[in-house]
C-alpha cells in the first residue's frame, strides 16, 4: 500500500474518498461507496428540481383563480414533479444511495457482487435523467405521472414518448441495482453472517430488490405499448382503435403499486436500525419484522386494482382487491407495533437520526391508517382522485420514505463522510421538516373529503377551498426550508465538521467495525461474525468492549 498523503500533519488513513482524486477516478469507479455518492449527488439534484415544481404548484394554488401559470404549464408541473420524484428520486433514494453504500458493508463483503454492473446502473440512471431533463426543457409532458391512456396515446401532443423512454432506461438501472443486491445478499455474506443474523436493513432491501426485479419490467412493457400505440397506431388502449383503456391501468398499477413498497420498505429498514441503536436494544420480534418485509413484497403485487375502484372494473373484482389491500396492511401494522415495543425498557437517546425515526413513525402511521379509508370500497368512491389521495400518498412517500432517507443520511453520514454534522442544526431541521410536512399535507385530507379534485389548477368555482390551500402552501415553504438545511450543513461538515470516530454512535453492525470513512475494500480483514444482529447488550457492557475485527 502506498502512503496515503504527502501532507505531513493530521495523517489521514487511506480510505475510499482519498485513495484517488480526479474526475475519472469517480466516473469510472466500481467502488460501491463511490457509486453511492454519485447517486447521492444526482438524486439530490432531481429532488430539488422536483421540489421546485411542487413549490410552484403550491404557489399557484394560493389563490383560487389560475393566475400564476397557465393551465398547460400547471399540468406539466405536476406531471414532471411526479415523474421526477417517483422515478428519479424516491425509487433510487435509499436503495441506490444508502443501500449501495451499506449492503456490502453490512453483510461483510468487499463490494457488491457485480461492481461494473453497479456502475452501469448509475450510467443508465444518468442517461434516463438527461433524457428527462431534455424532455422537460424542450416542452415537457402534461399527462400526469400516471399517463393514462387514451389521453397519453392519442390526445396529448406533448413529449410522452421521450419521457417514457427516459423512465424505461432508468427502470433498467433499478432492475440492475435490485439484481446486484439479491446476488450479494445470497452469495457474499461474511462467514458466520447467517440469514437470521442479518440486519433488518438488509431484509428490507432484499424484499425491495425482489419487487424491483419482478415489477419494473412490467412498466417497461407498458411504456413500449404506449409508444407503439402512439407511433404505429396499434390498437392496444384506445377503444377507437379497438383497444381497452382499463387494460392500461391494470398494467400501470401492477408496477406502480409495488413501486410504493420500493420506496417505503428501505425506509422501514433504515428506521429499524436507528431505533435499535438509539434505544440500545435488540429489535423486538426480529423474525416478525424480517418476514413482514417479505410479506409486504409478496402481497404488494396483489393489490394493484385498488387504484381502480371507480375505473369501471367489476364490483366483484373490487371486492377481492379491497380484501387483499387490508391483508397487506397487517404486516405494516406488525412493524409499527414491533418498533414501538422496541422502545419499551430501552435507554433512549434523542440524537438527530432518532428524531427523524420518530417523525417517520408518526407520519407513516398516519399515512398507513388513512390507507384503511381508501381500501374501504364505499369511501374510496368518494375520496379517490381528490386531495385525500394526494395527502395519503405524500404521508407514505414523503412522510415515510423521505423521513427515513433523511434519518439514514444523518445516521450513516459519519461513516460516509468521516465527519460529524452539527447536531443542533440537525435536530432543528428534523423539527422543521416534521412541522412543515404536517402543515402542508394535513389540510389536504380535509380538502379531499370536502371534494376538491386533484390536478386542478383553478378552483375559482369553489372558493371555499382557499383557506386550507393557503395553509398547505404555507406549510410547503416551511418544508422547503427544512429540506434545504441538511444539504447546507452536510456540505459544511465535509470541510469543517469534526472528524468522526469509527463508531460514533457505538452502534451494532459490521459497517461500524471498519474505519470512517471505510477503506476501498471495506475491511482490512474479512470479518467473521459470531454474534446476533443488534447485540447492544455486549456493546454496552461496562467492561468488555469486544472488537471482533482486527485492523
Amino acid at each position, binding site marked *: 500500500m502506498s502512503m496515503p498523503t504527502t501532507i505531513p500533519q493530521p495523517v489521514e488513513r487511506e480510505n475510499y474518498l482519498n485513495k484517488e482524486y480526479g474526475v475519472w477516478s469517480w466516473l469510472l469507479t466500481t467502488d460501491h461507496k463511490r457509486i453511492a455518492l454519485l447517486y447521492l449527488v444526482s438524486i439530490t439534484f432531481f429532488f430539488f428540481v422536483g421540489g421546485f415544481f411542487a413549490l410552484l404548484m403550491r404557489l399557484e394554488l394560493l389563490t383560487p383563480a389560475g393566475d400564476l401559470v397557465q393551465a398547460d404549464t400547471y399540468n406539466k408541473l405536476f406531471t414532471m414533479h411526479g415523474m421526477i420524484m417517483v422515478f428519479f428520486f424516491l425509487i433510487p433514494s435509499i436503495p441506490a444511495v444508502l443501500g449501495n453504500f451499506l449492503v456490502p458493508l453490512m453483510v461483510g463483503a468487499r463490494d457488491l457482487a457485480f461492481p461494473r454492473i453497479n456502475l452501469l446502473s448509475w450510467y443508465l440512471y444518468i442517461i434516463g435523467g438527461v433524457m428527462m431533463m431534455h424532455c422537460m426543457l424542450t416542452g415537457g409532458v402534461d399527462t400526469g405521472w400516471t399517463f*393514462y391512456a387514451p389521453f397519453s396515446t392519442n390526445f396529448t401532443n406533448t413529449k410522452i414518448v421521450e419521457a417514457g423512454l427516459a423512465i424505461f432506461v432508468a427502470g433498467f438501472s433499478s432492475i440492475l441495482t435490485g439484481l446486484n443486491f439479491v446476488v450479494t445478499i445470497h452469495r457474499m455474506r461474511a462467514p458466520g453472517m447467517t440469514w437470521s443474523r442479518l440486519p433488518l436493513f438488509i431484509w428490507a432491501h432484499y424484499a425491495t430488490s425482489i419487487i424491483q426485479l419482478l415489477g419494473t419490467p412490467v412498466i417497461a412493457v407498458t411504456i413500449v405499448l404506449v409508444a407503439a400505440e402512439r407511433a404505429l397506431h396499434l390498437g392496444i388502449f384506445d377503444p377507437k382503435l*379497438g383497444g381497452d383503456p382499463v387494460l392500461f391501468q391494470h398494467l400501470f398499477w401492477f408496477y406502480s403499486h409495488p413501486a410504493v413498497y420500493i420506496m417505503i420498505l428501505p425506509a422501514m429498514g433504515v428506521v429499524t436500525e436507528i431505533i435499535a441503536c438509539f434505544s440500545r436494544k435488540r429489535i423486538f420480534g426480529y423474525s416478525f419484522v424480517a418476514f413482514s418485509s417479505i410479506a409486504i413484497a409478496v402481497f404488494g403485487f396483489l393489490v394493484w386494482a385498488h387504484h381502480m375502484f371507480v375505473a369501471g372494473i367489476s364490483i366483484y373484482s373490487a371486492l377481492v382487491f379491497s380484501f387483499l389491500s387490508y391483508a397487506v396492511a397487517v404486516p405494516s401494522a406488525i412493524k409499527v407495533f414491533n418498533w414501538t415495543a422496541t422502545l419499551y425498557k430501552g435507554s433512549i437517546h434523542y440524537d438527530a437520526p432518532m428524531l427523524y425515526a420518530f417523525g417517520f413513525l408518526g407520519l407513516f402511521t398516519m399515512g398507513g391508517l388513512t390507507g384503511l379509508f381508501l*381500501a374501504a370500497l364505499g369511501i374510496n368512491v368518494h375520496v379517490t382522485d381528490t386531495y385525500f389521495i394526494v395527502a395519503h400518498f405524500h404521508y407514505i412517500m414523503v412522510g415515510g420514505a423521505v423521513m427515513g432517507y433523511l434519518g439514514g443520511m444523518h445516521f450513516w453520514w459519519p461513516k460516509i463522510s468521516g465527519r460529524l454534522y452539527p447536531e443542533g442544526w440537525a435536530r432543528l431541521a428534523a423539527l422543521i421538516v416534521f412541522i412543515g410536512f404536517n402543515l402542508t399535507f394535513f389540510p389536504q385530507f380535509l380538502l379531499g373529503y370536502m371534494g376538491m379534485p386533484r390536478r386542478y389548477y383553478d378552483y375559482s368555482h369553489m372558493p371555499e377551498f382557499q383557506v386550507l390551500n393557503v395553509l398547505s402552501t404555507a406549510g410547503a415553504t416551511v418544508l422547503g426550508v427544512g429540506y434545504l438545511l441538511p444539504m447546507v450543513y452536510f456540505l459544511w461538515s465535509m470541510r469543517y465538521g469534526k472528524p468522526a470516530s469509527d463508531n460514533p454512535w457505538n452502534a451494532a453492525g459490521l459497517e461500524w467495525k471498519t474505519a470512517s470513512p471505510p477503506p476501498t475494500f471495506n475491511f482490512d480483514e474479512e470479518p467473521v461474525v459470531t454474534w446476533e444482529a443488534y447485540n447492544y447488550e455486549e456493546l454496552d457492557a461496562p467492561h468488555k468492549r469486544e472488537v471482533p475485527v482486527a485492523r
Partner: protein
Amino acid sequence: MLNNFPLWPEQASTMAGHVDALYIFLLIVTGMMTLLIFTCLIFFAARFRHRPGVRAEQIEGSIPLEITWSVIPFIVFMVIFVWGAAVYFKERTPPSGAAEVYVVAKQWMWKLEHAEGQREINELHVPVGRDVKMIMTSQDVIHSFFVPAFRMKQDVLPGRYTVAWFRATKPGVYHLFCAEYCGTQHSGMVGSVVVMQPAQYEAWMNGGSTGPLSATGEKLFAELGCSTCHRADAQGRGPNLQGVFGKPVQLEDGRTVTADENYVRECILDPGGKRVKGFQPIMPTFQGLVSEEQLNALVAYIKSISADNSGAVGKTIKATAGTAAPSVQIQSSTQPKAQTNAQPNGSQVQ
C-alpha cells in the same frame, strides 16, 4: 370567509349518509389506533429515556403479543372491509325504475340528455327524491363524474358505458367535477347539479323539450335503415328487437349474454363481435357513422320497445309531454339484473 369554510361536505343524497357513517366510524377507529400508538411512543420515549447508569433491558420478542397485534387489527380491518363493501354495493347497484340520464363527456364539457329529451350542458337538473341513473360514455379520453355532495364518482370511459346512480335528498346547487385528469382544461370541466322540488322540476322539464330520447332513436332507427332488417312485425334478416332488452341472448359462439346498454352499443359498433345465434353476419358496422348522442338515442329506443306491456310503445311515448309519464316508461325498461351486469368489464371484446 369563515362562511365559506365548512370542513364537511354537504349531504345531499341517500348515499351521503351511508358513506359519512362509515367515514366517522373509521375516524374513530383510526383515531383510537393513533392514540394508542402515539401514547405508547411518547410514554416509552419519556419513561425510558437514557439515564446514566441505567442500561436497556434486552427483550427478544413475544409470540403471543405478535399474534395479538396481528389478529386484532385484522379483525378490525375485516369489519371495515365488509362495511365498505356493503356501502359500495349499494352505490354501484342502480335501483330499478330510476329515471335515466345519458351523459356524454368530452374535453372539456359534460353533455347530458334526459330520457325525456331535455338536453343540458355542464348542468344537470334533477328532482328531489327520485332515483336517477346515469348512463355515461366519453367521446375522447377518460373523465370522471364526481358530485361530492352525493358522495358519488364514476369514471366515464370512451368506447363503452359506465353506470352510476343517486337519489337527491335536498334541494340546492351542488358542484359537479371531472375527477379524472383529462387535459388542459381539466379544472374547467366543472358544472353543477341543480336539485329541485318536484313541482319546480316539472315546470323546468316542460320548457323547450325536443321530444323524448327514444323518439329520436326511433326516427334514427328508420333513417339508418335498421328497421329494414330488424322488423317489428316479423322475424327479418336481423333479430326482432321487441322485448329483447334486459333479457339473456344466446350467441352464435355458444355464450349467453344479457342485452344491457353495453351489449346494444357493441352490437351497433361491432356487429360481428357478439352475433346472435342463428343470424348471418351481414350487418355493417356503424362505427364512425353515429355520434355518441345518436347511440344513446338508439339505446334508449331499443329499451323503450322492450317495456313489458308494450304492444304500442311508440304511442305511449307521446304521453311524455305530460308530467309523470316518463317514469312509467322507464320503470319497466330497466331490470336490476341488467344494471349490475353493465358494470363488469367482462362485456368487452376486442
